[in-house]
């Protein structure tokens, strides 16, 4: 039952509360479902910058349900599996709002599996094994001394470091007349070296004894570089900064007499096309010239308002609306509609009423598509949005 990456599905959900970043969840009020194949279902609820996660069979009301096998789910969460790749190849699927996946990712710090700790004995051996390597000749310049380490208990041992002329030799056993002798238990020694406990605490509680030149004891921290456990060597890498910026620009576009007439028509609940004087084709939205005949097009005719659907873009992907920055409700549909009075390619593009999407039939050659009619906005300003959408004419 153990997952490929040595991390259980339960650990991912169990650590969610401590990994939660309330600042990234401001204004989010939603539930997200997780269906981990063979392991059960979890529901994450986020509201007012707080969260709750529970194992439950009932995922109703979730804006998105993520489904994956345990290995894929764990792999994505600990960064061992590329999320986009898992999603693209269908190993991880999302039922509902796809953008939710991104939102929840931002709400949690990445899960870092706990490292397997060394035993006290392993630490002690590693600490003395690396002592020569950690010796800092510059800090020991001109010093000549021996330091004896008496590390008590079955996990301990005895070592002596002989320092002279900028060199350090570490040998097992205790030197008979050391400059300084440190005596303490193995576990306390390990804690001291890992920074979990300080010298003062150990001395004042009599858990450590320093015999000899205490001046030397004060210098040990400089003479030996700080101990780092295996695999945790500090890398002096440059942090690569990323600057985040948002720009927002007010714009004003003159519409001109041709487009202006079309937009004013919408304000008056009229759909106006213009007709090429040469080839007689209609243009919707109107254009200033007929690009094919290269002549000005000044004659307007009212078309529609009803028409038949020639193509429907049934959109599942909740892309953000760049005009508002808000995520669109999915599914939504944009349609190419042949309005009454138009023929061939003289189509008009607009949206379909969302709850009518599933009943729309697309026309093909002679076959007509579903007849639709515009639903006008209450407040109209001379914009394409003066039509809310088209709905089935019934």
């Amino acid at each position, binding site marked *: 039952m153990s997952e490929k990456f040595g991390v259980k599905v339960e650990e991912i959900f169990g650590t969610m509360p401590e990994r939660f970043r309330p600042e990234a969840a401001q204004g989010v009020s939603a539930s997200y479902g997780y269906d981990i194949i063979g392991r059960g279902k979890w529901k994450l609820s986020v509201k007012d910058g707080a969260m709750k996660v529970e194992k439950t069979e009932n995922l109703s009301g979730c804006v998105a349900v993520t489904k994956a096998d345990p290995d894929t789910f764990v792999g994505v969460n600990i960064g061992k599996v590329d999320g986009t790749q898992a999603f693209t190849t*269908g190993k991880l699927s999302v039922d509902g709002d796809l953008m939710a996946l991104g939102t929840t990712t931002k709400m949690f710090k990445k899960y870092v599996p706990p490292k397997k700790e060394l035993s006290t004995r392993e630490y002690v051996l590693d600490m003395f094994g690396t002592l020569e390597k950690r010796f800092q000749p510059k800090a020991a310049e001109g010093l000549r001394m021996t330091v004896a380490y008496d590390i008590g208990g079955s996990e301990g041992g005895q070592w002596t470091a002989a320092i002279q002329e900028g060199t350090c030799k570490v040998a097992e056993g205790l030197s008979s007349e050391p400059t300084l002798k440190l005596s303490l238990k193995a576990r306390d020694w390990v804690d001291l070296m890992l920074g979990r406990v300080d010298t003062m605490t150990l001395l004042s509680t009599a858990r450590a004894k320093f015999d000899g030149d205490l001046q030397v004891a004060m210098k040990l921290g400089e003479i030996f570089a700080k101990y780092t456990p295996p695999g945790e060597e500090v890398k002096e890498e440059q942090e690569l900064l990323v600057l985040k910026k948002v*720009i927002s620009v007010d714009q004003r576009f003159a519409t001109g007499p041709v487009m202006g007439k079309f937009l004013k028509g919408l304000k008056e609940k009229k759909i106006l096309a213009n007709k090429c004087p040469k080839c007689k084709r209609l243009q919707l939205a109107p254009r200033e010239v007929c690009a094919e005949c290269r002549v000005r097009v000044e004659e307007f005719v009212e078309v529609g308002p009803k028409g038949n659907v020639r193509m429907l873009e049934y959109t599942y992907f909740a892309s953000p609306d760049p005009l508002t920055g808000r995520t669109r409700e999915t599914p939504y549909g944009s349609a190419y509609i042949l309005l009454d009075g138009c023929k061939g390619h003289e189509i008009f593009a607009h949206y379909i009423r969302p709850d009518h999407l599933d009943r729309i039939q697309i026309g093909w050659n002679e076959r007509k598509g579903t007849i639709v009619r515009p639903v006008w906005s209450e407040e109209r300003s001379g914009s394409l949005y003066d039509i809310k959408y088209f709905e089935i004419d019934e």
Partner: protein
Amino acid sequence: MSHKKKNRNVAVIGVGQTKHSSHREDVNQPEMVHEAVRAALDDAGLTMDAIDCVVHGNMELFEMIHQPDLWHELGTGAYGKSAFRLTTGGTTGTTLFCAADILVASGMYDVVMAIGFEKLQEGNTTAGITNMADPLWARNLQTGALTGTCAYDVIQEFGEERAKRASMMYRVIMDKHAGLNPNAHRQFGLEFDQIEHLMESSAKLVGELRIIHMCSQSDGACAVILASEKKAKKLSKKPVWVRDHITVHREETFNHLGYDNRYPLDKTHKVAARELFQRNGIKKPLEYFDVFEMYDPSSWWGLDWIRDFFMLEGDEHFKLVENKEIMIGGKMPINPSGGVIATNPIGATALIRPAEAVLQIRGDAGPHQIPTPVKHGLASGFGGTMWTVLIMLEKELGW
């Protein structure tokens, strides 16, 4: 379309690319562009001193930087040289290539470097594409680059089962190619026995366009060096000749979706292929060309456009895909590089097409090299409102 012959012959003498990926946060834009410039100069065995003019481009507004050529100057090496900036949406890369060709052919410059780049992670692609649309009305409806219309058309014509299978076959072939290309971005390791599963399991975007069908969003750059015949022969052991190219666009075709065979409509790919091949006396393009690097934004478009570009009839293009004839080693290898579905740093994407075709003709493509001799190459660009650019490349002069 009136068209005159070039004043003088032009050859590609160097190409360079970055490794393409979804994140290049380790470098800034000029640094990333410089990687491609460096690679192209190394490929040509030249230093920046040999370059007379630099043509720079990307998809305008994707990173919301106006005139990035100013910022990029340290990376492009354009300082003190003639420089142009071009941007034509998705076709930018091929436009850069054509412009460099024209600048050399005109006699104005002997050696010109074209540079295309994109760092899609640094901006907002959907906002960029939406702002491409006419602000008076089309912007209210524009929703980025996703569309399911091509899938719908192909399904209408060939039936759901065959169409879905062929487009997924195309996708798996592209992934197999990408797996061989060390510079490709997405390399999934898809297998042919996954076709059935992927047809139903990959998440839907629009209609039958699923996420697996759609091109990636990549960071990357490409640079190509073009030179006059005299210079090319002096500087390069393997010059690849730019025979001819054509750009066809028509803003209105974007809006022309009447779906009625009583009102036939010429797509720009068809027009481009017809005109270009006619004026070059190519009667059977499928027989003539040895490689095609196609700008395929999705596997539905890739599948469908094979018919337009090679002037095929009926289901000939389906058979090419179904019989794996478009694979490396097949009758007409398409996108040995893995194509746009695998790698799409948009401003560089269309420049990578002729760059990859050049590598194939030279025999320098490495693991994704076509095993048989490649003499005649074709490369396309696609963008915005169905723009098409088509480029012919030759191994030998004297066509």
